[in-house]
């Protein structure tokens, strides 16, 4: 018998995902869209991490761009200034954000709620400020340039289709890792923390340790995204790692549905698609400017919270499930109590 509440990872979803990744560059060949899809993958990695933090540990981070920026700058400095191989700098680009998250989580362990949210916001502002001000190391506001490209088996991974595949390969790894975490003991512990920290703590769940672990994991994901972002382009600048970026990541998670790994991924794709749509429309109609993009983002956030508080993905999945259950009921014409439980994949 299948245990109630214990969910297996549904692998067919992953298979569909892999097929979609492989097919996309065959259908869409314009380099603009390939680049945008690559960016979407980078954002998806951050969003999945943030989604785990928000949906499972119930914590909000208003400074996720800090870890993203630290990852990007760590690898840039190691490779461009110190001449390391990008592959060698990858573990360091993951380690430094992790250490920052550990230090942050450790000193802030007495904080909770809005105090913690504000602390992460402060961290984001401090890191962005240091990137701008640390001119000797980061080259300041004008940006860091001269970042080497990635090579694999002596071949350069160029921007375009090759880089697209590299990024989405990492998205796949992050996705599988996250799905496994969610459906493990750790995942259940995290969900219990989200529902009631006091209850789970009294059931013997070490809430502090789990929260710290997921915070560090989200920082590592952001660091990975930063590494991918840095080596995709020749130069990076602090303007990519502002408070606005942190808000954008938050928007992705909320739109897709926090408490859902797939939701975060879909949220990242949707936010990117909205940006592209507004941009493309803006080229045709002069009255649509980048301001409209902000107005639309704002409006979407508002509408999603009001009409789909759990986010797009869980709402749609629940709706589909309910309609199938009803159909099955009709067929069997036996009274079956529909099991309503939150979707957590």
């Amino acid at each position: 018998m299948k245990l109630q509440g214990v969910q297996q990872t549904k692998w067919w979803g992953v298979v569909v995902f892999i097929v979609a990744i492989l097919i996309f560059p065959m259908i869409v060949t314009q380099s603009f869209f390939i680049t945008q899809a690559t960016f979407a993958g980078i954002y998806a990695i951050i969003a999945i991490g943030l989604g785990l933090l928000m949906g499972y540990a119930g914590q909000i981070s208003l400074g996720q761009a800090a870890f993203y920026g630290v990852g990007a700058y760590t690898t840039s400095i190691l490779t461009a200034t110190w001449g390391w191989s990008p592959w060698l700098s990858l573990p360091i680009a993951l380690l430094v954000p992790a250490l920052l998250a550990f230090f942050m989580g450790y000193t802030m362990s007495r904080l909770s709620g809005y105090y913690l949210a504000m602390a992460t916001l402060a961290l984001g502002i401090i890191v962005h400020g240091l990137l701008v001000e640390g001119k000797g190391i980061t080259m300041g506001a004008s940006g860091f340039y001269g970042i080497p490209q990635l090579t694999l088996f002596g071949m350069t991974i160029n921007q375009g289709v090759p880089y697209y595949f590299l990024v989405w390969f990492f998205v796949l790894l992050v996705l599988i890792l996250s799905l496994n975490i969610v459906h493990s003991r750790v995942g259940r512990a995290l969900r219990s923390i989200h529902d009631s920290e006091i209850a789970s703590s009294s059931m013997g769940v070490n809430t502090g340790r789990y929260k710290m672990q997921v915070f560090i994991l989200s920082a590592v994901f952001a660091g990975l995204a930063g590494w991918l972002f840095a080596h995709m382009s020749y130069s990076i600048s602090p303007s990519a790692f502002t408070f606005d970026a942190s808000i954008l990541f938050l928007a992705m998670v909320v739109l897709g549905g926090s408490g859902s790994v797939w939701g975060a991924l879909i949220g990242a794709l949707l936010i990117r698609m909205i940006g592209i749509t507004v941009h493309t429309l803006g080229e045709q109609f002069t009255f649509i400017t980048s301001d409209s993009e902000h107005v639309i983002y704002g409006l979407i956030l508002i509408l999603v919270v009001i009409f789909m508080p759990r986010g797009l993905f869980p709402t749609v999945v629940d709706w589909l499930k309910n309609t199938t259950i009803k159909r099955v009921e009709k067929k069997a014409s036996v009274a079956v109590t529909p099991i309503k439980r939150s979707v957590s994949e």
Partner: protein
Amino acid sequence: MQDLLQFTLTGITIGSIYAIVALGFVTIYSVTKVINLAQGEFVMLGGLTMFSLVSVGVPYWLSFIATILFVTLIGWLMEFLLIRRAKGADAISLIILTIGTSIFIRGISSMVWGKDQHTVAPFTENTPVTIGGASITPQSIWVVLIMLLVVGLMYMFIDKTMLGKAFQASSVNPMAARLMGISPKRMSSFSFVLSAALGAIAGLAIAPIIFPAYDMGAMLGIKGFSAAILGGLGSAPGAVIGGLLIGLFESMGAGYVSSGMKDIITFSIFLLILIIRPNGILGEKTIGKGGL
């Protein structure tokens, strides 16, 4: 010594604005438990509405009243159209809702007022006054006076009027307040109106000093939020203390180190204080409300 005095005066001026913004956060939080990250946009709207009115030749006194009324209307609409519809959403979603609102207002404002900074003439003749070697502009004195007036009026209102008592009651114990016939909806709506009015006042007072632009709300909102957190969320005296402290850190940081470093210094000190006093300086009894 002269420098110290100068930086202190600058710090108190900007700190007064943060204090008013922080009071706006506290007003909404204490009744609805919502953190309104669109608070900074009220300030921006205050400053830019003031600019529009003054530039078409409306007298100052009338501009003050019209600006406050206009921003108050926006605050009321925000509560009525958005916050009220999302009742039952969890704390994270509510924060996102206010962030969405703030992005939306900012986008609309950049369409209306453009991306330039605007100039508003000072309220009165603006020849700097020298006090003990440090100079201060009359407009700065206006800002501090307005802050004191706002704090005084808030105190009078909360402590001496029936509506204020009702307001206090629904923040201390919403259930009991409801049983006494105080409508929680009306109080929630009222908190947004009051808070928008506070934002408008901060905006029109600071307009001649900082050249308002569509994007000034974000940073003011963040600083106001830090001030409210620093003082102890939910405490009005804490908000004023927090605001003044943030203003002082900032002006000292800019003066003694560099203006580029001021935010880094301000938020580093902010984090240090939070490590020592996790509930803020004056402390909040019920920390972590909202299940974050």
